[in-house]
């Protein structure tokens, strides 16, 4: 059996009396899209933060490429090859689209301590950034100020910046939100191909996309994973039906 | 150093700490409730001192002078809140710094224009000008003791105000969720004006109380303002309890450092260089205290993470 690339083991996080993450164990295998779904307030965002960095768990470990990264900062995890996109776009809004992508390429190259030559004259960084924009279909907007992008376009830019990192795994928080029907479809096709480059842990509300894409699905309810399996297994799982549809319908 | 001298210095430290608390409490409330950094708080301190000195000069009454200090500072606070400050709540900190820095220039130069550049003197009332005998035979100036008592009473009153009263509940609610209390029908802009005026009145009172020990002059407020900032950094923004603890720590460190450090260096140095090095280090002692707190608790002793 192959080793999981990303492995979350017995993660606990409480805010006061609220158990936001309650013993979550989860694995992301090479080449797969593993979707994480769950009703609002299930603790998905809290879990993502503990995986990608920014929030320390009370107990449990996060393993990435066989290495314990639980104590590492967000930037150290990013440097190790874990790329993350945000639910609410997190971009440099005054900068251009291309500059945001170049920032990613720069982070990947680790070439930030340069104080003289304009970064936009660095042909290699710009080429990498443009290639990433091209892949998500934002190449025409390279010179646009990021604040002027629509919400959907900002989503695409988030993904493009993640691509410039040439990561070993993606953690994506609702990349489809705000994309509209046709945009969603294009993103689905894109992610479908992307899994061959690096596996994706996908948090998503768009169930069509989830069921079309995911190799495996985990369902998070009240901080606990109640089921993990293929799309068909999840559809048939009585506990999942209860969680989503309520007691009576499941009976 | 004799124990009596030491106790006297401790009391001096308490007295300076408690006046710092009066400044810091207002600042920290204003920051906690409105999210505003107010550099002009030192000007309100100065206004209180000048109002007290002027009224004491006309009437000869110290009580009236204190009343005037409270009234003048509260009125000035209310006016600047309504004319300038309320336009700044939604601005970034840089704009707040700039605008309140501009207010300092206006208030300082305005006061210089009205009262001239020479310091005024506010006399300690005759009844309080002598010393009192404390247990153990310690003689201590009764006026300074009065400052400590007034300050402690105000601290208690403030804690009660925040914990028990309607306005206190609104203040606490305003710190956690501005929109929610607006939705509950609390008149936010009135609440803000009241909080600002309350902070201003405390600053004005501190200015008047200290004005009777030191001279009353333009520019007297800013050194105290910066000390109050140190207090808030140590105590944690938005916490009245932090302001009290921080203020006492700063007051004691500053006063005792100035006395004890030269003595300490005198143990292994000749007296003149011990005084030099000791007092130079003493001038830095509270900032070193602040640096230590920052190293271990970046959000202050009672600050929320």
């Amino acid at each position, binding site marked *: 059996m192959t080793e999981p690339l990303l492995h979350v083991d017995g993660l606990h996080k409480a805010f006061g009396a609220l158990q936001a993450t309650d013993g979550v164990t989860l694995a992301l295998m090479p080449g797969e899209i593993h979707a994480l779904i769950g009703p609002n307030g299930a603790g998905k965002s809290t879990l993502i933060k503990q995986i990608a960095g920014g929030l320390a768990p009370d107990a449990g470990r996060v393993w990435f490429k066989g290495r314990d990264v639980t104590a590492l900062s967000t930037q150290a995890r*990013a440097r190790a090859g874990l790329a993350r996109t945000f639910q609410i776009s997190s971009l440099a809004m005054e*900068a251009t689209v291309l500059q*945001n992508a170049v920032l990613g390429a720069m982070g990947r190259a680790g070439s930030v301590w340069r104080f003289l030559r304009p*970064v936009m004259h660095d042909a290699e960084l710009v080429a990498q950034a443009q290639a990433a924009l091209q892949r998500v279909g934002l190449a025409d907007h390279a010179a646009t100020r990021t604040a002027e992008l629509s919400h959907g376009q900002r989503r695409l830019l988030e993904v493009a910046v993640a691509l*410039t990192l040439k990561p070993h795994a993606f953690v994506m928080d609702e990349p489809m939100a705000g994309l509209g029907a046709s945009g969603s479809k294009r993103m689905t096709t894109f992610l479908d191909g992307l899994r061959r480059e690096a596996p994706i842990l996908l948090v998503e509300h768009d169930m069509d996309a989830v069921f079309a894409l995911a190799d495996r699905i985990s369902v998070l309810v009240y901080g606990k994973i109640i089921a993990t399996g293929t799309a068909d297994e999840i559809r048939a799982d009585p506990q999942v039906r209860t969680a989503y549809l309520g007691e009576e319908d499941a009976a | 150093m004799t124990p009596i001298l030491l106790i006297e210095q401790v009391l001096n430290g308490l007295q300076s700490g408690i006046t710092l608390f009066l400044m810091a409490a207002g600042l920290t409330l204003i920051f906690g409730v409105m999210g505003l950094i107010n550099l002009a708080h030192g000007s309100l301190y100065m206004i209180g001192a000048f109002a007290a000195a002027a009224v004491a000069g006309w009437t000869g009454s110290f009580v009236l002078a204190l009343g005037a200090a409270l009234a003048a500072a509260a009125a000035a606070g209310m006016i600047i809140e309504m004319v300038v400050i309320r336009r700044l709540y939604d601005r970034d900190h840089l704009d707040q710094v700039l605008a309140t820095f501009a207010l300092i220039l206006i208030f300082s130069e305005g006061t210089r224009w009205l009262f001239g550049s020479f310091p005024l003197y506010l006399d300690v009332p005759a009844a309080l000008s002598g010393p009192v005998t404390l247990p153990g035979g310690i003689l201590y100036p009764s006026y300074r003791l009065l400052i400590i008592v007034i300050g402690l009473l105000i601290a208690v009153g403030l804690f009660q105000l925040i914990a028990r009263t309607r306005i206190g509940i609104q203040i606490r609610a305003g710190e956690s969720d501005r929109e929610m209390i607006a939705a509950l029908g609390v008149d936010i802009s009135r609440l803000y004006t009241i909080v600002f005026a309350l902070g201003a009145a405390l600053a004005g009172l501190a200015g008047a109380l200290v004005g009777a020990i030191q001279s009353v002059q333009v520019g007297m407020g800013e050194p105290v303002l910066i000390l109050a900032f140190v207090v808030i950094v140590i105590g944690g923004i938005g916490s009245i309890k932090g302001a009290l603890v921080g203020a006492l720590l700063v007051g004691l460190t500053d006063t005792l450092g100035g006395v004890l450090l030269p003595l300490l260096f005198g143990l292994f140095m000749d007296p003149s260089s011990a005084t030099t090095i000791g007092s130079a280090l003493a001038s830095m002692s509270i900032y070193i205290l602040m640096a230590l707190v920052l190293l271990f608790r970046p959000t202050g002793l009672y600050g929320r993470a």
Partner: protein
Amino acid sequence: MRRETILNTLLYLAMPVAAGLAFVMGETFLITLITRAAIFALAAVGLNLALGLGGLVSLGHAAFFGIGGYAMGILAHHAQTYTPIMDTWFVLEGTKSMPVIWLVAIASSALAALAIGALSLRTSGVYFIMITLAFGQMFYYFAISWPAYGGEDGLSIYVRNDFPGLNTLDPMQFFALVFAILSGVLWWMGRLARAPFGLALSAARQNAERVETVGLGPFRLRLVAFVISGAVTGLAGALFADLNRFVSPTMFSWQMSGEFIVFIVLGGVGRLFGPVAGAMLFVLLEHLLSPVSDFWLIYVGTILLLVVLFARGGLIGSLAGREVAHD
């Protein structure tokens, strides 16, 4: 050409042209005044790296200005009294050489900025403002209470320090020297803003999370920016001390820190020439208003208040439009 570029060129040329005119008319006092504006501009250009590009509202940059000033004062004082600075383990002499003084000023203010930055960057927002203000005040009180270099009275230097090949006592030559330094630093700051470091620093100001997710640490970016910023302001302090041939604790005062921020905001935050415009405007206001009224700072305060409340974007912003330059 963009309007801001034209404006920048005009601002840049204004100083040497005005100094040249003053020279022709024999108004030495005016040359000194323009030199003063250029030095203030340099100090604020330094601060603008931290404040404008990095978003770090430092209210303690007078600390670096003062350290630069005292670096000059102490070195020159020992040189003019022929006493060594130190002779315990090895002999360290004072100097009257400007380049050496500048290096010492830059190094010592950078070191202070490293210490202050490492502590205060652990916090952010309003904490950062209060802490930098407090540390600035610490240097002020230290300078007052340390008697070896004049304490409250400060130090006078009898003759301006030397620069190879120049007569620095000639106001025009000293101005040229200051202006050359200002030009060099402005050029570098212009490059820096567009270099990889500048992009990352500016991105960290706009969205620290974004910078972390691409694997860069905002703390280190900001600390380096703060150190460079402090060093530039320290260099300005050494020049200011040489201009006046005098240093005193006033260089450390919190009003000084406040005025640096005022220069930046009057000119326009985050714009390369903002501090230049602001410093020129301030020195001009001081020159025009102070004979009119002893209380001229009231007018400055009022203007500043109006700029903050109603004319956001400062002088350059009002004249060149709100759009900030992008490459």
